[in-house]
């Protein structure tokens, strides 16, 4: 071997060795819990030193509007544990101080705590002002935590920047100690991909706390695969208790939603899981047969696979009909299709009910079902339902271009279609709550053509959209060609106007609106209760506000 060749080989070997060591170091690197928030005792102490009861009274004005948060499952869900099993971390400064002492943090001369290595117990909290409650909570924490020797730095910014700073950076580079935000849940309690799932702790993922607990991860995986609801409930209850004990992220509060309803409206059964598709059919009115609803804003995306605003989704739920919907108890039940499981629970075979027609009279077939749901897999799809398509078998080949169609979706006959998923999970059924759009109107071969119908939706539901002015109003009228006349709406239509949140109550009082949902705070509640011609409906919302601890710090 020549000298040059030998040197080159040596250089190559050294490079390879370095690469290998870096690689193995990366593999071996586990994110270690940090000295401050990585310690469970510290997190618990911080919670004991936060007067959440008083915060709720200050921010919302009454416990009717919000309750102290306990575990990351909605109290209305079937998976919620027994209250006696959960710790509510009632305000107790002495206990908090004792826990910090136990964790090895002693009070220094300046009144703040230091540990044995001289690290100061100082935390940075990212607060956004778009909603008032993070400001209130952090201001309170500032005062009460100071009393137990914790220094709090409050960093103000806007909502998007907080979301960005906590989600976008890769693990280990997330620059914050604490942040607060709200989170809305689905009817299915599966926590995968959310705040508490370690698999979601990545660049762009939802989990920013970095907390790793093998048992918790096992429980999450087990719950996703268990089809027996009683056993599944037990799994989630155990998981919720564990999260309540470890609090890598604390649930701050469960908020309620309040509605003002004019007394001329009967049959409006609002609830946590109640869906408009159900509610609207029982409504009867005295006087003018058009129900007047006030919404804060609508985007105009009246498309079942594209809508991402609550208000747009309400409309989609009554103009379109979906195979499955949520029941009042929060479970998934058949709506316009029945289904059967097979193939180790990976395949769902749906059979559409007989006689379903769209509002223009054309019958609904499994072609429409196929069309609507496979549009999600279209390479130009930019809506929020990607996960529906990505879980299907054959999606990867279709997305890569090596397959013409998705092998997991098969039309069996005019009313039957089957969907096969890569993995069996009871949560898969949740993918079918999106309405079916008529292929003969929406399909022109392009995504552009598909979304051009966004502001003129045509579906099979009990209401049709007859008039729409962007940002002003929407008029829904009863579908005269509704295929199921026994279940049609009893009123003539719904008139939805854009009303800014602060004017909703005034509009209710004047009778301009029949139904509206103002912000849930004590002033609004009192104002509505004082109005004679309306009554107030309230229920616990399906979501919570949380406070996330960066356990790597």
């Amino acid at each position, binding site marked *: 071997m020549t000298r040059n060749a030998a040197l080159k080989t040596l250089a190559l070997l050294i490079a390879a060795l370095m690469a290998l060591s870096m690689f193995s170091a990366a593999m071996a690197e586990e994110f270690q819990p940090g000295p401050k928030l990585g310690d469970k005792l510290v997190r618990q102490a911080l919670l004991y030193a936060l007067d959440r009861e008083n915060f709720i009274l200050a921010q919302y004005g009454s416990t009717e509007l919000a309750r102290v948060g306990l575990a990351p499952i909605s109290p209305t869900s079937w998976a919620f544990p027994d209250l006696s099993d959960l710790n509510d971390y009632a305000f107790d400064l002495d206990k908090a101080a004792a826990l910090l002492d136990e964790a090895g943090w002693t009070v220094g001369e300046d009144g703040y705590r230091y540990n044995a290595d001289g690290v100061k117990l100082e935390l940075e909290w990212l607060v956004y002002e778009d909603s008032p409650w993070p400001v209130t909570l952090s201001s309170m924490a500032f005062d009460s935590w100071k009393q137990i020797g914790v220094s709090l730095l409050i960093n103000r910014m806007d909502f998007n920047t907080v979301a960005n700073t906590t989600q976008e950076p890769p693990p280990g580079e997330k620059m914050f100690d604490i942040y607060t935000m709200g989170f809305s849940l689905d009817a299915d309690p599966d926590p995968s991909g959310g705040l508490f799932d370690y698999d979601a702790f990545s660049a762009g993922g939802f989990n920013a706390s970095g907390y790793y607990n093998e048992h918790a991860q096992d429980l999450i995986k087990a719950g996703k695969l268990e089809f027996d609801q009683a056993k599944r409930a037990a799994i989630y209850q155990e998981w919720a208790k564990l999260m309540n004990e470890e609090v890598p992220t604390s649930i701050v509060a469960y908020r309620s939603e309040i509605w003002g309803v004019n007394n001329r409206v009967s049959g409006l059964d609002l609830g946590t899981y109640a869906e408009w598709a159900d509610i609207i059919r029982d409504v009867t009115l005295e006087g003018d047969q058009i129900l007047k609803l006030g919404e804060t804003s609508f985007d105009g*995306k009246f498309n079942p696979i594209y809508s991402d605003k609550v208000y747009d989704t309400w409309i989609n739920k009554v103009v379109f009909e979906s195979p499955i919907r949520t029941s009042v108890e929060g479970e998934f039940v058949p709506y316009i299709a029945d289904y059967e499981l097979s193939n180790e629970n990976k395949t769902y075979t749906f059979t559409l009910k007989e006689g379903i027609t769209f509002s223009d009279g054309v019958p609904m077939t499994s072609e429409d079902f196929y069309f609507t749901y496979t549009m999600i897999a279209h390479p130009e799809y930019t809506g*929020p339902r990607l996960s529906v398509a990505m879980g299907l078998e054959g999606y990867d080949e279709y997305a890569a271009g090596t397959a013409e169609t998705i092998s997991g979706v098969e039309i069996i006959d005019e009313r039957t279609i089957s969907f096969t998923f890569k993995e069996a999970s009871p949560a898969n059924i949740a993918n079918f709550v999106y309405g079916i759009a008529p292929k003969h109107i929406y399909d022109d071969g392009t995504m552009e053509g598909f979304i051009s119908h966004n502001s003129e939706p045509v579906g099979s539901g009990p209401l049709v959209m007859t008039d729409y002015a962007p940002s002003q109003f929407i008029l829904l009228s009863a579908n005269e060609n509704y295929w199921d006349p026994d279940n049609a709406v009893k009123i003539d239509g719904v008139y939805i106007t854009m009303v*800014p949140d602060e004017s909703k109550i005034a509009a209710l009082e004047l009778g301009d609106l029949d139904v509206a949902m103002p912000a849930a705070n004590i002033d609004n509640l009192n104002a509505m209760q004082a109005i004679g011609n309306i009554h107030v409906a309230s229920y616990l919302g399906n979501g919570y506000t949380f406070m996330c601890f960066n356990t790597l710090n």
Partner: protein
Amino acid sequence: MRTYLARRILQIIPVFLGILLILFFLMEHAPGGPVTTMMDPRLTAEQKAILAERLDPKLPIYQKFFNWIGSALQGNLGYSIKHKRPVTALLGDFIGPTFILSFSALILSMLIGIPIGVLSATRQRSLADNAATVFSLVGISMPTFFFGLLLLKFLAVDLRLFPLYGMRDNLLTRNASWLTRQLDVARHTVLPAVVLGLASTASFMRYTRSSMLEVIRQDYIRTARAKGLKEKVTIYRHALRNAIIPIITLLGFWIPSLLSGAVMTETIFAYPGLGKISVDAVNTRDYPVILGVNAMLSLLTLVGALVADVLYAVADPRIKYE
């Protein structure tokens, strides 16, 4: 004149391109993107990355810039990420109310400002003049949003004379006649137009007054009076006509100013115009809309200035541009 026009138009182009380039630069460096604002808990990081690439492809900035200019020249301003509609359609829907609001404010300020300015100039030191001076001072010193809130409280909330929000009372007028519907819009536009027009009214008043004062001191006015012409004729036919001329230049300033100023007023009165759309677009990082609105308003500002200068030349034969 024609060469002047051509020159000015040519000058507008680099300025406009400069503005666009700066805007593009700002967008590139904005933290977060349209996908972060789509806070769906079920999206994994992988899915977000896919969506991000589809919504905002990672091209070099100059390529993006030329693409945008190219399609803009063909009338395509892209698709709104949030609304999933063409930006031109979105602008078309919402520019109407903003125009109505701005022009109402402009007409109002001219109808009130100019006559009072004339009055103030012809009856100097009188009560009317002093009152007008006070009013104009208040007008330019009062923060618009505070004034809006005050009017809202006293006239809309307490006295219930005007509606609280919006541009139309959709419920009341959905089956009414065309006239009723227009009157309803007018009723909804009064408060926002008054609020928006406060500063411009004061400005017109001040400007008219000083312009009139200058004209009145001219010799030809003395001649007119000496000729025995009636005072009214002197004032209105001779003085006013000449005094109006510099006021036309104010239009070039106020028209774009009112269009952008409408953002504030639309927020307070929930008037469904461009203001709301732009603020929303920024909050959701909807780049095509932000670019579209900014580009349009900048262009209008530049064109407005040009139009004002041209009108000035047309109105005053003494002015010659070459």
